[in-house]
C-alpha cells in the first residue's frame, strides 16, 4: 500500500481524536488540540479538515442523537480508521527520519 503523509493539522486532528476516545466530536477534538497541543483551533477549519480526512478514508463519522443543548442538532462522532492509524505512523516515521542528524536541533536540546 502507498504511504500516506499528513499535514501538521491533520496529524494533530487524528492524534486528538484518538486521545479523546470513542465519543470524539468536533468541539472536543478542537479543545484537546488547544489544551494539549497548545494550538488555537477554529471549529470550521477542524470540520473542513475532518471532512477531507473522511473523504480519504482516514476517519469515519457517525451522527448521534440530537440534544436540546445543541439546538436539536446531531452530534457528529469521529473515529480514526485503520488507514488513519497507518497514516499517523507513516508521518511519524518520516518526521523522525527528517529530525535525526540535524546538529542545530541537537544543540537546541542541550
Amino acid at each position: 500500500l502507498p504511504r500516506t503523509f499528513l499535514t501538521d493539522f491533520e496529524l494533530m486532528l487524528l492524534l486528538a481524536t484518538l486521545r479523546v476516545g470513542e465519543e470524539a466530536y468536533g468541539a472536543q477534538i478542537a479543545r484537546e488540540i488547544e489544551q494539549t497541543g497548545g494550538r488555537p483551533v477554529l471549529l470550521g477549519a477542524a470540520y473542513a479538515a475532518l471532512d477531507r480526512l473522511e473523504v480519504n478514508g482516514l476517519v469515519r463519522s457517525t451522527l448521534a442523537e440530537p440534544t436540546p443543548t445543541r439546538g436539536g442538532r446531531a452530534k457528529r462522532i469521529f473515529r480514526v480508521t485503520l488507514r488513519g492509524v497507518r497514516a499517523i505512523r507513516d508521518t511519524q516515521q518520516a518526521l523522525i527520519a527528517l529530525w535525526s542528524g540535524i546538529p542545530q536541533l541537537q544543540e537546541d536540546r542541550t
Partner: protein
Amino acid sequence: MKTVHPPRLATWMLDRFGPGDDGLTGDLMEELEQGRSRAWFWRQTLAAVLYRRRTRRAVRPLLLVDRDPVLPHPAGRRVVNLTASPLPGIGGLGLVALALLVSIMSPGSWLVALAILVIGLAAGAVLGYVRGRRAPKPPAPALLGRR
C-alpha cells in the same frame, strides 16, 4: 441553568453559507451553552463561512463557456458538469442563463434575433433556389441507354 440562545443571524449564516453540517452548528451552540461568549460564536461562524468558501469543491455552475467539460477529473474531486453539454466549449446551462439574462435586461433583443433568423432562412432558401435553377440537369439514364 440559564439557556443561552445563539445569535439567530449567525446560525442562519451557518445554515445558509456554512458547510451545512449540523455537527458544527451543534458544537458551537453547545460551547456557547457551556460559557463561551457570543463574540466567540460570531468569530467561529465567520471563520466557518470563510473556510467553506475557500474549500468549496471546484464546481463551476452556469458557465457560458466551459473549458473542458468532458475531460476526466482527478480522483477524489466530485465534479458535476452543470453545463450539461457533451461538446467542449459549449455550455448548455450557460446558454440558458444568457437567454434569461437577455430576456430580463432587453426583451426587445429577441425580436432582432428573430428577424435576423428569418432573414437568414429566407436568404438561404433564395440562394438554394437560384443555385438549383442554374445547375445543369444530369441526363436521364434511360436516354443514355438509347444512345
